[in-house]
């Protein structure tokens, strides 16, 4: 079963409290909660290692999900050089606690998933983040060829959930009774509460974390701003909304980075740091939908020496 659109003609003046239209709305409320996917991150890059112990290859933000539904990473993979297996570890952390899951793949190539159900970690206004690790079972090399991180929706638990959502029972609809205000309120608020707990990414760039000080495709040792990426965006709603910029910067030596994004002539930046660098900003569709060729991502060394490498850059809807 899935969300099923209702013929508007079923809503007639004087719709009774026990009319089937209410049951349809209650059913769709539950189905949307059960079905609605949130897409957090994605990449087309290939991530490779010949390490035989778990090696971090990527990290990305996993915002909201106060209801602790499972996170999934769906990935393509390949084994080369005589490798017989690869072990993919997906760790979700809130900065202190972690939830971890592992999957072992043995085919020469294919697609697989690794799922983490949060239990130890907690959602907060600061996004949790996922760490993807990879190693081989012995000889050869393991490669992950692109992945998408998303939410695995499930039927709502009973009672009032941490997101604020609560299922609506259908036992209230006594014949000819007025509609209880709590039912109307619930059904009106639930869509917003679901949306708030399932923000989607707008943009996602994820490159391999080397951990060895090696440069990548978006690295510089310059103290002047260097354009490392040209992002374009899918069309966004014209209403002004809050978004989150979430970046992860690797460095060598003691270099710190400035990351600077220009979106439709609007500037967003995080300054003089490394590791996770995040901020929020407000933008409207007329900004996000502006000429794609004018958008740029700059990075530079702001202090210290060495080079800095942009490994992750996500722009995510920010509940507000």
């Amino acid at each position, binding site marked *: 079963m899935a969300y099923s*659109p209702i013929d508007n003609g079923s*809503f007639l003046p004087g719709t009774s409290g026990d*009319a089937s239209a209410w049951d349809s709305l209650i059913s769709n409320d539950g189905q949307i909660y059960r079905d609605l996917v949130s897409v957090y991150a994605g990449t087309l890059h290939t991530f490779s290692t010949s390490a035989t112990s778990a090696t971090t290859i990527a990290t990305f933000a996993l915002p909201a999900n106060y209801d602790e539904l499972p996170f999934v990473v769906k990935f393509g993979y390949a084994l080369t050089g005589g490798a017989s297996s690869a072990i993919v570890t997906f760790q979700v952390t809130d900065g202190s606690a972690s939830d971890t899951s592992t999957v072992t793949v043995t085919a020469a190539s294919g697609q697989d998933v690794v799922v983490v159900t949060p239990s130890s970690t907690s959602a907060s206004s600061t996004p949790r983040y996922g760490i993807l690790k990879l190693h081989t079972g012995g000889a050869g090399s393991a490669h992950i060829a692109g992945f998408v991180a998303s939410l695995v929706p499930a039927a709502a638990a009973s009672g009032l959930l941490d997101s604020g959502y609560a299922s609506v029972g259908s036992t209230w609809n006594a014949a000819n009774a007025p509609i209880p205000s709590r039912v109307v309120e619930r059904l*009106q608020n639930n869509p917003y509460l679901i949306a*708030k707990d*399932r923000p989607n990414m707008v943009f996602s760039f994820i490159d391999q974390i080397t951990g060895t000080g090696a440069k990548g495709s978006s690295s510089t040792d310059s103290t002047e701003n260097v354009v490392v990426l040209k992002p374009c965006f899918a069309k966004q709603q014209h209403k002004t909304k809050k978004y989150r910029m979430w970046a992860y910067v690797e460095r060598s030596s003691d270099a710190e980075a400035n990351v600077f994004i220009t979106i439709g002539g609007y500037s967003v930046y995080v300054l003089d740091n490394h590791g996770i660098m995040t901020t929020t900003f407000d933008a409207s569709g007329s900004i996000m939908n502006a000429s794609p*060729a004018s958008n740029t991502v700059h990075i530079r060394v702001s202090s210290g020496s060495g080079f800095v490498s942009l490994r992750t850059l996500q722009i995510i809807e920010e509940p507000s």
Partner: protein
Amino acid sequence: MGLKAPGYNPTSPLHSYVNTLPVAANASYPSSIDALQHSLATAGHHYGEALGVHATAGTYVLSWPVRPSVVYVQITILMQGNGTITIDSTNNGTAKTWTTEGKADHIEAAYALKTSGLPGDGATSPLKVRSSAAWTWTEETVTIVLSGAGTIHSIAFDPVWEAQSI
């Protein structure tokens, strides 16, 4: 039964409606709730997304989540330099191909390539990602092949929201 258009009401950030008293059974309540639900399930919550990459010649595969009622997705590619890009999906009868020549191979000279947003199966139509409309979520394997010396910097996926049968 008829067609139902996508719902464009923004469903986030949170808006709250509070009714404090029992209310008479009035058609405005179920219809407004239905509009919200339809918006959340369709265009009110699921704008497109874009992937940033540094993709040189090669084949790239993505599993793209297809939203309820969506059959087509408009593709925008931000490209640097020259090359041939082909993008295809399992359900698409016509792969989308662009070949560019004479472009400066410099990041500041990146340019956009895009399909139209008008549903159809022509060479310039949006990419078909589902054989026919359904109100369920699904996933579609999208394959991007780049040949030549150019670099892809970003690929944006814009769902094309059409009215669909109910």
